[in-house]
């Protein structure tokens, strides 16, 4: 597969990466562009998995894998990762994070760069991901959860633009996007102790005239709402207000799965059925003084609180919360394996992070 050397014609700024996946005739997926710059690293691989059957009627192309890597497996304050990916029509891309969870680090205030007083908030780290998905192309983005360390500040914006020039349902782009965040390093007793985590996922439709329309925006803001003025005094008690912990209780991990397009149609329906067939809450609890209804036999669904909703334009949005990331991982991995779409269309490796 012709992969351009990342060292030639590299005009990228630090942390920038650019990927273009094209389909060369007759049906040979190929990365026509692949550039990146420190601290970002992009690796690709074509495992040669050929989907046996597909929900699409067009000739099925082999999925290509893209690994998003950062030096040290995470982001330091001030790091800005900016990845732009283009999926040309009929291509398939699997994006995973083989380094495990994306760690959001925080430098000690007193050991940090020049001119920063102790007690000041650390720099934000940022990640922007801009993906354009062509007709009949499919993205499968199932990364590990983000793990924001104590006192870290992070912001990510993931924008997905789909081709809306086609009206035929079966020609639409397909998206599977997972975005989840945990309470931090539980082994170190961290429990939503970071300062800021903002995650925004947007899906835009681009029509013939080049006009964009917002189809979906999923925005989560976990902000300790610290007054910087108070921080100058360096008083620790003012810094810990537990606001994020209070707002996420009782969960240790929260996440969203966005499904769209013909490839994921069956999976979407599967999630919807699973949600609507959940046992009714409070079904047998007739009196307010009686103990709660007997729990149904333990299964994955009972440990994870989730909703699935067919929102609009054919999107299915799954939101979940669980006590820890392992539980959520088991739950999601099991559903995706049981249903089989992801494995059929992209191969077992697409579920690498689950």
């Amino acid at each position, binding site marked *: 597969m012709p992969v351009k050397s990342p060292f030639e014609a590299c005009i990228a700024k630090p942390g920038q990466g650019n990927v273009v996946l094209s389909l060369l005739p007759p049906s040979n997926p190929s990365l026509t562009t692949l550039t990146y710059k420190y601290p970002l690293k992009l690796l690709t691989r074509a495992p040669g998995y050929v989907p046996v059957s597909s929900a699409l009627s067009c000739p099925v192309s082999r999925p290509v894998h893209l690994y998003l890597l950062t030096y040290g497996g995470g982001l330091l304050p001030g790091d800005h990762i900016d990845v732009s990916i283009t999926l040309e029509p009929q291509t398939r891309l699997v994006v995973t994070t083989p380094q495990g969870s994306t760690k959001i680090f925080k430098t000690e205030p007193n050991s940090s760069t020049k001119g920063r007083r102790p007690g000041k908030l650390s720099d934000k780290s940022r990640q922007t991901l801009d993906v354009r998905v062509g007709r009949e192309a499919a993205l499968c983005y199932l990364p590990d959860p983000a793990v924001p360390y104590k006192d870290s500040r992070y912001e990510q914006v993931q924008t997905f633009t789909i081709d809306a020039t086609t009206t035929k349902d079966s020609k639409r782009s397909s998206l599977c996007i997972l975005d989840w965040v945990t309470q931090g390093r539980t082994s170190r007793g961290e429990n939503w102790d970071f300062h800021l985590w903002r995650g*925004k996922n947007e899906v835009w439709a681009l029509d013939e005239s080049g006009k964009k329309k917002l*189809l979906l*925006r999923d925005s989560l803001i976990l902000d300790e709402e610290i007054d910087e003025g108070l921080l100058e005094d360096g008083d620790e008690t003012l810094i810990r207000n537990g606001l994020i912990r*209070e707002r*996420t209780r*009782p969960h240790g991990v929260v996440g969203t799965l966005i499904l769209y397009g013909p490839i994921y149609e069956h999976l979407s329906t599967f999630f919807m059925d699973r949600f609507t067939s959940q046992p009714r*809450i409070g*079904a047998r609890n007739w009196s307010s003084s009686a103990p709660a209804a007997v729990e149904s036999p333990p299964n994955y669904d009972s440990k994870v609180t989730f909703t699935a909703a067919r929102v609009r334009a054919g999107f299915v949005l799954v*939101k979940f919360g669980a006590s820890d990331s392992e539980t959520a991982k088991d739950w999601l991995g099991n559903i995706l394996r049981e249903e089989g779409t992801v494995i059929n269309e992209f191969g077992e490796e697409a579920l690498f992070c689950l």
Partner: protein
Amino acid sequence: MTVKTHVSDLEKEISDLEYRLQNAKTRLALASGQEPTEDTYLPLPQDTVPLVPTHALLLLSDSALPLGSFAYSSGLESYLAHNKPLPPRVSPVASFHRFLKLSIASMASTSIPYVLAAYRYPDDLETLDNDMDASTPCVVAQRASIAQGRALIGVWERAFRGTYASGPFLTGPVAARAVKAIEAFSDELKSGVDDPDSLGPKGHFAPLWGIVCLVMGMDARQTAYVFMLNHAKAVLSAAVRASVMGPYQAQAVLASQGLQDLITARIDREWDTPVEDAGQIVPPLDLWVGRHELLYSRIFNS
């Protein structure tokens, strides 16, 4: 556009100040024992007719405003079911207070930017409605917002338009544009197909609230405050009907300094938030609201 909005804000502020000056003069006259001039029992200056913001304020904050807001508990019912049984030493009222706080914070972060954006840029109503629809991740909340928004349009057309869309109550060119925007939007809404998959106008509550308040001469601050207070009222009313607390207790919460401070603080925080940065700050709330459909028995629509 921003400049014009600014001008009308200033005009309102000036007339408000004039009104207060007149008021203070009258009170001074009374206090200093002078014979008050003319009819001082109603110290209303003659030229304030087009601007009686209090009247619109009272109308819009009235719980009898037929929006059907009280059919929704905004997730309270589901929250109570999900947190049953309560851990020992947590009283139902304490648990409710937690919910109220979360609900107000979440409502402010997801909706206030849209209320204020529609107030400031009435021409963008349709885009705001689309973006709000795209940003509401859960169908239960979506239904509640759309039902109330459409009810508000209904009240506007059948009740308020006659007085506020023209004549002395129309407060300026921005308001006139806003009237046109509402009308165009309403036509669009009626001609649109009622298909959940269609991307036509939906009629979400927050942006419509902002624009209707603009036309009725409320200032931006009041618009946001009444929006939040009405939400608090709806949640408290739901609490009374769900037997969490009694009606007097609920009124006490509504009257409390704590609630006022909370609303003010949340509005201050979202005052300059662009709609692109509006978002959920209480993730479990989406889960509770979304799982309302799973409740075995329900007394509310959300």
